[in-house]
């Protein structure tokens, strides 16, 4: 009789353990949870340092850059204006080691960016395009002979696209970029020296 009484009590208590909620309440909870996952910072002022690899006609190299962006509030701060700067070293060996070419490039551009902030996506696309200048220093070293240096500042432009996701107080951004800045030096002669890059960075919110 005692055992039967215990089992009856357990069955009677089961509904209270299940915490029955109404459909409306469940929907509200789900919406609240989803909002927490897509609360994009949408900073007014942000900086995004980046590091990546660049490829092209001067082989594979690395690049380091940063973007300072200002989003004035248009289109829910999806649109921003930015100053973008990057540095990239690259080198090339001539046939039979007859020469070695080393190129340092600093590119700076005024850019427009658009981040596709969405209330329902944890991963958003972003796009950018910019115009500016590219400053290059190309040193061609001839072993035993000497070094011929060429320097230039030429117009440059770029377009990029990438994906961003929340991480901490900022966002992690992965970007593909194509840059066009044909060189006017004799040694590079129209080359944009490894103009394609894949980079990753973190956007810090400053304001």
């Amino acid at each position, binding site marked *: 009789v005692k055992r039967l009484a215990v089992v009856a009590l357990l069955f009677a208590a089961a509904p209270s353990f299940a915490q029955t909620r109404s459909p409306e309440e469940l929907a509200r909870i789900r919406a609240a949870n989803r909002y927490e996952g897509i609360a994009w910072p949408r900073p007014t002022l942000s900086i995004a340092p980046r590091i990546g690899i660049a490829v092209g*006609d*001067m082989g594979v190299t690395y690049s380091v850059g940063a973007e300072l962006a200002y989003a004035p509030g248009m289109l829910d701060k999806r649109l921003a204006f930015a100053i973008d700067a990057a540095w990239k070293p690259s080198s*090339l060996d*001539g*046939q039979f080691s*007859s*020469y070695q*070419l080393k190129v340092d490039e600093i590119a700076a551009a005024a850019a427009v960016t658009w981040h596709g902030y969405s209330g329902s996506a944890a991963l958003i696309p972003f796009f950018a395009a910019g*115009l*500016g*200048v590219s400053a290059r220093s190309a040193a*061609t070293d*001839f072993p*035993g*002979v*000497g*070094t*011929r*240096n*060429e*320097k*230039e*500042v*030429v*117009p440059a432009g770029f377009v990029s696209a990438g994906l961003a996701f929340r991480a901490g107080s900022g966002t992690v951004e992965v970007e593909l970029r194509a840059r066009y800045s044909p060189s*006017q*030096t*004799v*040694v*590079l*002669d*129209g*080359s944009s*020296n490894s103009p394609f890059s894949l980079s990753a960075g973190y956007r810090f919110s400053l304001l």
Partner: protein
Amino acid sequence: MRPSIAILLLLLAACTQVDSFTPTITALAANNGVNDRTPLALPFRMCDVPAHFTVTDSFGPLPDPVVFIIIGSGFMPQVANATESGGTYRSPLVALEGPATYQAVGSGVFDPERISFRLDYGDQPFADGLYAVSVRNPDESETVTARLANAVQIVPPPRAVPSVASVCLISPATVVFRGGPFVPGLRVTASASQPDLETSIDAVDQVTVDIPSGANTGPSLVLTFLDPTGCKSSVSIPVSCP
């Protein structure tokens, strides 16, 4: 600021700067494989036709090019379009300038003070005369052409015309030849197996040759005049005794 003005300013911002090298020439040196930089006596003499040959398996005897070293400063090559197919390696432009202009081929810069000069023989003899050696670096902005005047003399093979119609070799004979050019270092031989004949250069257009008795047993004596450049010519003199 209107976009068109901004773009114009960007284009105006384009500028380039390149290191410039100014060549000078001070001397010529032999291409002896040693960096001794011992100057050659100028003008450096070379034959207008091939003087030496190298026998190759595929093509038989091929004329050896004329090669020497130019001593100076500021010699600098250039690479163009390096990102396409290894680029184009441009050596300084080296040439002989005189009665004709001959562009050297494959000039190699050993260091800023030495560059090789190589001139290949073609189907036609080179034009005889005195030449300047010139060097200009390849960049278009480097407009200075260095020149060393009267540096090379291209000469024909020595022309030898005997002053006698025949020679008698019962006893030693002395024969005067006219023509030339006859310069110190001239060698005259009666055959490859015999030693050089005694010669005396009287003038650039006259040489006296002592021919020993029995230098030849045939009906004619063939003498070869060999210039120091390797230029050579042969002359045949009938052998007869009165």
